[in-house]
C-alpha cells in the first residue's frame, strides 16, 4: 500500500500569492498570443485560397515558420506554467526560474518575429539542415544567426525550467518513487499523484529532446566553421527534438487533466500499478517512436524503420488503455460539474484520442509512403494539438481565472463557446484530412495544377476558421475578464 511521501516545506501564503500572480501572467500572455498566432494560420489558409495573388510566396513561408514555432512554444510554456502551478500542492518549484523563463521566452519570441516577419526567414519550424544556409537571398546570414540565437535562448530557458521542476519533485520523491516503481513492483512506498509521475516522465524525455536541439545548433555552428556535417544525423536529431517537444506538451496537458478532472467528477484518480507501468512504458517508447518522421529516408536502415512503426503502434496502448479509458471511467455516471473548464478537459482528451488514431494510421510505413508531407500530417497534429492540449490548457486557464477571481461563468455563453470551438475546429480539420487523402501537399504557398483541388479545401477551411475565431474571441472575452480581475486583486 502506498504511504504519504515525506512532506516538503510548502510555500508560505505570501509565496503562494506571488506564484498565483505569475501563473495568471503566464495565462494572460498565452491568451494574448493565441489570437495573434491563430491569425497567422488564418492568413496561410487565405493565401492558399489565392486571396493575396500579388503577395510574394516568401511571406507565406515566413509566416508558416512563425506560426508553427510560435504555437509549439506557446503551448509548451502554457503546459509548463500549468503543471508548475498544480505541482505547488506537492512540491516547491522556483518562482525565479518561472520568471526567468517568462522574460527569456518573450525575448526569444521577439527575436523570432524579427527573423520571420522582419527578415523573411522561412524554413518551417524544423529548419532542416542545411536549408537555413541556402536562403536564395531571401534572408540574410545575420537573420540566420539571429534565428539560432533565439532558439538558443528558448532552449536554454526551457531546459532550466524542466530541470527545476525535476529538482522540485526530487526534493520530495526519489527518482524511483516519482516514476512509480514501487507501484510497478507491488511494494510499499510513497503515494505518488499521477501529476508527479507524468510530469517526471515528460520532463526526463523533454531534457533529452533539448540536448538533441543543442547538438543540432552546435553542428550548424560547426558547419559554419567548415566542418562536414551528416544530413541524416541532423535529420534524426531534429525530428527527435521536435517529436519530443510536441509529445511532452500533450503529456503535460494530460497530467493536468489527471489532477483537475477528479474535482469536477467528485471521484479520485490515483496512481496504481497499471497507471505506473503505462507511463514508464511511454518513457521508453517515445524515445524510438520519432523514427516514423524518417520513413521516407530510405538510407536509414530498414530495421530501424520497422522498429519505429512497432514503437509508434505500441505508444498508443498506454494512452488509450490508461488515460483515455481512465477519463471515461472517471466521468461515467459521476455527479459531474459541467463547466467550461471541465468540458474543455473532457473534449481535450477526446481530441487527443482522435488525433492519435490518425497519427497511428500515418505511422504505418506502407501508408506513410502515400501520406508523408501531405495535408494528412497537419491534419492529425492539429487534431491532438488544437482540439487536444490547447483545449486542456484553455480549460486550465479558465479554471484558475474562476478560482482566483470568484467571477461565475455564464452557462449559455460557455455552451456557445464550446459549440463554436467544436464546429469551427473540426470543420477546419476535416479539410486537412480530405485534402491529405487526395494527395494535396502540405507547406505549399500556392498549388500546382496536380493539386489544384487544394485551393477549394483551403477556401472551405477559411469559412470554418472564421467560426473557430468567433469561438476563440468569445472564450477570450469570458476567461480573459476573469484572469484580469484575478490579476488586479492578486
Amino acid at each position: 500500500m502506498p504511504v504519504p511521501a515525506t512532506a516538503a516545506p510548502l510555500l508560505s501564503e505570501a509565496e503562494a500569492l506571488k506564484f498565483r500572480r505569475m501563473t495568471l501572467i503566464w495565462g494572460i500572455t498565452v491568451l494574448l498570443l493565441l489570437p495573434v498566432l491563430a491569425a497567422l494560420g488564418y492568413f496561410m489558409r487565405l493565401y492558399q485560397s489565392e486571396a493575396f495573388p500579388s503577395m510574394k510566396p516568401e511571406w507565406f513561408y515566413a509566416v508558416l515558420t512563425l506560426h508553427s514555432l510560435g504555437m509549439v512554444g506557446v503551448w509548451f510554456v502554457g503546459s509548463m506554467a500549468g503543471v508548475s502551478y498544480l505541482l505547488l500542492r506537492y512540491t516547491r518549484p522556483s518562482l525565479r526560474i518561472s520568471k526567468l523563463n517568462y522574460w527569456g521566452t518573450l525575448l526569444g519570441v521577439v527575436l523570432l518575429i524579427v527573423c520571420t516577419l522582419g527578415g523573411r526567414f522561412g524554413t518551417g519550424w524544423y529548419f532542416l539542415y542545411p536549408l537555413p544556409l541556402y536562403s536564395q537571398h531571401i534572408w540574410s546570414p545575420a537573420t540566420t544567426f539571429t534565428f539560432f540565437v533565439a532558439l538558443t535562448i528558448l532552449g536554454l530557458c526551457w531546459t532550466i525550467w524542466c530541470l527545476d521542476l525535476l529538482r522540485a519533485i526530487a526534493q520530495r520523491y526519489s527518482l524511483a518513487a516519482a516514476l512509480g516503481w514501487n507501484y510497478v513492483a507491488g511494494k510499499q512506498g510513497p503515494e505518488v499523484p499521477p501529476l508527479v509521475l507524468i510530469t517526471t516522465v515528460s520532463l526526463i524525455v523533454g531534457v533529452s529532446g533539448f540536448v538533441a536541439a543543442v547538438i543540432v545548433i552546435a553542428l550548424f555552428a560547426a558547419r559554419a566553421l567548415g566542418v562536414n556535417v551528416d544530413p541524416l544525423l541532423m535529420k534524426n536529431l531534429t525530428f527527435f527534438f521536435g517529436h519530443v517537444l510536441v509529445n511532452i506538451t500533450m503529456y503535460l496537458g494530460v497530467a493536468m487533466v489527471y489532477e483537475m478532472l477528479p474535482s469536477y467528477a467528485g471521484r479520485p484518480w490515483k496512481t496504481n500499478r497499471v497507471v505506473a507501468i503505462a507511463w514508464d512504458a511511454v518513457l521508453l517508447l517515445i524515445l524510438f517512436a520519432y523514427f516514423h518522421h524518417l520513413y521516407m529516408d530510405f538510407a536509414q536502415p530498414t530495421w530501424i524503420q520497422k522498429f519505429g512503426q512497432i514503437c509508434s503502434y505500441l505508444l498508443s496502448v498506454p494512452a488509450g488503455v490508461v488515460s483515455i479509458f481512465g477519463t471515461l471511467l472517471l466521468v461515467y455516471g459521476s455527479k459531474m460539474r459541467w463547466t467550461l473548464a471541465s468540458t474543455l478537459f473532457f473534449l481535450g482528451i477526446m481530441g487527443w484520442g482522435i488525433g492519435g488514431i490518425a497519427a497511428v494510421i500515418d505511422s504505418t510505413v506502407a501508408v506513410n509512403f502515400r501520406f508523408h508531407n501531405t495535408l494528412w500530417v497537419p491534419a492529425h497534429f492539429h487534431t491532438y494539438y488544437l482540439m487536444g492540449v490547447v483545449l486542456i490548457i484553455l480549460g486550465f486557464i479558465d479554471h484558475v481565472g474562476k478560482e482566483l477571481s470568484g467571477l461565475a461563468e455564464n452557462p449559455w455563453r460557455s455552451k456557445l463557446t464550446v459549440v463554436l470551438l467544436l464546429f469551427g475546429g473540426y470543420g477546419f480539420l476535416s479539410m486537412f484530412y480530405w485534402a491529405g487523402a487526395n494527395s494535396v501537399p502540405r507547406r505549399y504557398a500556392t498549388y500546382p495544377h496536380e493539386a489544384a483541388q487544394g485551393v477549394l479545401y483551403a477556401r472551405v477551411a477559411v469559412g470554418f476558421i472564421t467560426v473557430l475565431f468567433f469561438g476563440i474571441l468569445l472564450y477570450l472575452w469570458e476567461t480573459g475578464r476573469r484572469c484580469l480581475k484575478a490579476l488586479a486583486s492578486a
Partner: protein
Amino acid sequence: MIQMHALYVFLAVAGLLVAIFIYVASSTRHARDIDSHAAYGIRTKFFLVLLGVLVVGLGLTLGKTPYPKENEIPAKVVFVVGKQFSFGLSDSPISNDEEYESSTYSAPVQVPLDSLVEFRVTSFDVNHGFSVYSPDDHLIAQTQAMPGYVNRLRVRFTQPGRYTVLCLELCGMGHHRMRGVFDVK
C-alpha cells in the same frame, strides 16, 4: 486508393470514439455508483482487443514497406538530382551542376510499363521530397532527396502516361513550383 481506405478507417474508428464520449457524457445526467472491479475487467478486455488489433495491423503492413529488396533486379534505372528549384532526371548518372542543368532541359525520361523501375535520388543542396504523381494526380510513391545520400525508390508503373514529380519537403521560397516529369510507355 490506399489513401481513401485510410481515411475511411480513420472516420470509422474516430466516429466510434466520439460516440463513446457522447455516451459517457450523457451518463452523468443520472449519477450512479460504478463497480470498479467490473470496470477494470472491461479495461483488461479493451487492452487485449487494442493490442490484438495493433499486432494484426503490424503483421499485415510490416512486410509491405517500400524499401528496396536485394533479390529484385530493376528493369530500368533513372538517376535523379534535386536542386533548388527543379528535379533533374536522366538515364545516366548526374555528377555535377552542368549535367544537372542539362537533365532539367532535356526531353522527359521514358520508363517501361509494368516493369520494376529504380530511381536513384539525391540532392545537390538541401533536402527535397521526390514525390511521384500519377497522370490522374494521385501521389503514388515518394522518397527523400538528401545531400550526401542516394535513396533508391523502386516502383512498378501500371498506368501509362506523363507522371509529375513534386517536391514535398520544404526547400525554400520556390518549393511549391519545384517539379520534374517522366513518361511511362
